[in-house]
């Protein structure tokens, strides 16, 4: 038996005592939790509560488990809304498939429970589909082909009156950072159409679909909504110089309203572009003044790591800084867990890290050097410095020693007007 867990591995240490050598179907462990109204699935999927956290366990072929594990982690890194992979258990014994472990998405609701318990007598179809379509578009913008988009494979959360959709089940997915082909997107959408219709037929047969909802209509509607949103976000527009500014502002406003952010607006001379040979739709070639606008929509929710860090520690950092600090917290947590031999909740680890590591370093910055860089940046440089010193001396020198050395030898050399802060 072999565990592949993402750090901080010890957080999931309690999972090690589960009866991995038995088929998941036959488990009787008291930590098992029954989740009703979950999505349809082919594999055996069960849930366990361990050390205060709920996990989803899915038994599947090792090749697929490794693949899904990898893809879910990439989605996580990209800040895309998906369930979080914790690990995979392989080599469980003869004739046993692997088990993929994901963290249960808190407050997740499946479409089945939404339909079974309509709130205020209103069926949620409309908002549900909006959320699902938005998720699919977001994934496609990132070059992610789902290969199995369905209501079952989408989890929903209430989000200020609307729904937020999360991806689950990446078993058949592919990630192509250079972008999907039209064919790949259409394939995904076609599949979604089929799946959604099927799921609604099934709800109907179960007596949970209001009679006025026609499964095929709804499925076709998903395709229409998808196409509308995709077009709005990616369409190239030909602008006339006179109303250029207005049109750009207008477009960006619409994109924001749809819940997306713009990464880049590119304006190209229609003529130049025609020369490059991009296909079709070049207008205004005649007067040579028209300009084409291309918008690149941001893939992930902006500031994803930044927000997480803020809620955990109250530190307000830039996105990349936040990503690194979160890594350091994760490493610290793993260290604590190794030391104490039991799982440490995220909140506890974050608080202790703040008091015992971060604050300690930041408070010992000499006053006269304090403004050279922002605090977070200084802290990150100390981390680098620690690595550098440890590398040279062949052993870990510890954060405090590294900080003191850094304040003495490195920070004074940073010009004091570098960041422009007093």
């Amino acid at each position, binding site marked *: 038996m072999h565990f592949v867990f993402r750090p901080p591995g010890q957080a999931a240490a309690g999972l090690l005592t589960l009866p991995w050598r038995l088929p998941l179907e036959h488990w009787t462990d008291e930590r098992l939790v029954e989740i009703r109204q979950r999505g349809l699935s*082919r594999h055996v999927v069960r849930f366990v509560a361990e050390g205060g956290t709920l996990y989803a366990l899915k038994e599947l072929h090792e*090749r697929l488990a490794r693949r899904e594990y990898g893809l879910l982690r990439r989605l996580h890194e990209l800040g895309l809304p998906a369930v979080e992979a914790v690990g995979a258990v392989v080599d469980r014994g003869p004739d046993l498939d692997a088990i993929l472990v994901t963290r249960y998405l808190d407050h997740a609701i499946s479409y089945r429970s939404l339909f079974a318990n309509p709130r205020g007598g209103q069926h949620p179809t409309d908002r549900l589909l909006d959320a699902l379509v938005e998720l699919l578009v977001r994934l496609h913008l990132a070059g992610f082909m789902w290969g199995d988009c369905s209501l*079952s494979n989408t989890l929903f959360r209430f989000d200020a009156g609307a729904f937020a959709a999360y991806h689950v089940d990446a078993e058949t997915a592919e990630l192509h950072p250079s972008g999907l082909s039209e064919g790949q997107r259409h394939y995904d959408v*076609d599949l979604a159409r089929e799946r959604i*219709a099927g799921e609604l*037929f*099934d709800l109907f*047969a179960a007596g949970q679909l209001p009679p006025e909802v026609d499964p*095929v209509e709804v499925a076709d509607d998903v395709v229409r909504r998808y196409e509308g949103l995709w077009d709005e976000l990616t369409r190239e527009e030909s602008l006339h110089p006179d109303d250029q500014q207005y049109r750009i502002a207008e477009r960006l406003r619409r994109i924001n309203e749809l819940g997306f952010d713009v990464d880049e607006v590119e304006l190209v001379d229609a003529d130049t572009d025609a020369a490059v040979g991009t296909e079709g739709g070049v207008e205004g070639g005649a007067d040579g003044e028209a300009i084409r606008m291309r918008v690149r929509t941001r893939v992930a929710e902006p500031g994803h790591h930044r927000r997480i860090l803020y809620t955990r520690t109250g530190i307000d950092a830039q996105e990349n800084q936040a990503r690194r600090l979160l890594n350091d917290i994760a490493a610290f947590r793993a260290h604590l867990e190794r030391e104490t031999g039991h799982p440490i909740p995220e909140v506890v680890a974050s608080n202790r890290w703040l008091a015992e590591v971060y604050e300690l370093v930041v408070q010992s910055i000499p006053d006269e050097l304090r403004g050279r860089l922002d605090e977070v940046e200084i802290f990150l440089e100390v981390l680098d410095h620690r690595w550098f010193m440890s590398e040279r001396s062949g052993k870990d020198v510890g954060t405090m020693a590294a900080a003191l050395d850094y304040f003495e030898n490195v920070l004074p050399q940073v010009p004091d007007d570098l960041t422009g802060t007093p």
Partner: protein
Amino acid sequence: MAAITMKNIVKQYGDGFPAVNDVSLDVQDGEFMILVGPSGCGKSTLLRMIVGLEDITSGEMKIADRVVNKVAPRQRNLSMVFQNYALYPHLTVFENIAFPLRLAKKPDEEVRRRVTETAELLELTEHLERKPANLSGGQRQRVAMGRAIVRQADAFLFDEPLSNLDAKLRGQMRAEISRLQRRLGVTTVYVTHDQTEAMTLGDRVAVLRKGVLQQVGSPRELYEEPANLFVAGFIGSPSMNFLPATLDSSAEGTFLETPLGRFGLPDKITAAEIGDRDVVLVGIRPEHFEDASLVSEEKRARGTVVQAHVDVTEWLGNELYAYVPYEAPEDLAAQLRDLSRELDSDQLRTQAVVALDPASMISEGQEAELWIDTSRAHIFDPATGENLTRDEERVAALGRQAEQARLRQRQAQAGQAPTGQAGNGATQAKPDQEPPTSPD
């Protein structure tokens, strides 16, 4: 029903890399064609181009003599079966099969007729009113197939449909799909990364590597006459051993000097054909070795006996494997390692895998006498991978034989198709469409 003809098909994605590169392939009417190759070699892309889900960058795709490069998927009348079909627990078997027709809003009468026919074909008639939960694993899979068949398409396309089944069910389903395909006689293209599956299912197998078609032929042709090092290594399990060898010409004749000893040059190749290559790779399948003490005198003479140090043995009851490590020059060893990695195999490349008669007494750590059937060995050019010993006449003969076997099988099927399928009015009532059943 329809033949599918691909001519110089190329697919480039946005990054410009040719995922499918100049593939020409004819799938004959009624044929069961397998596309096989390691993950990422372009199988799914090619399949999606056949269905019309992917634009073709260049080349020509024909279905039944009609160029379909610009024809929409729905107008191609093909049926695609995906890896992850879903059965709906509250729907009856009938409705689970009827599902694609409901989606297409077909009239009830037609739905009833087609589902009934399909169920009969799949021997699901008596289960039509049951729910999937009350079916066996195999029956559930047949329901999923029913969903593809009920569309009455001109061809079936499968993209790794069995990859998320357990091993037992997978074996069962292979047999089922193969039987059904023969019975229906519908042109079928089936994608898999699993060479065992490829070898047991298809009439012909097309091997792809990095978007390039390596070889198309019957399973037997691929096994016996591989076109190159890649195909030779990919087909067969455990895979073919490749021994570096130098040519040694003396008064006694010409020999191949290998790390396992000196072999006579196989009849099918001359020293001239090896030319001035310093080193070649001799390919010997594990099953073409034997414990020399168990080989008759007469047979012995047809091959070569070598002395080898057996490192490890593995006895599986019906099979006995021996592992024989050998030395190889670093550059060749590196090349073989790369090949191994590309083939996703964990077989060590500088260790020969030898399959022995389970009655053999050869054991670990022993110096053993091994007989090698050198007449079945192949010789490859390490630089190009080309098989220098491929016998084109035999390839042609194997091709003809496979084609005849396929036609005979189809005729036999047509003769014994169940009543209510071929022949009677049920499917032929629709004049605009050929029935998906065997021709009379």
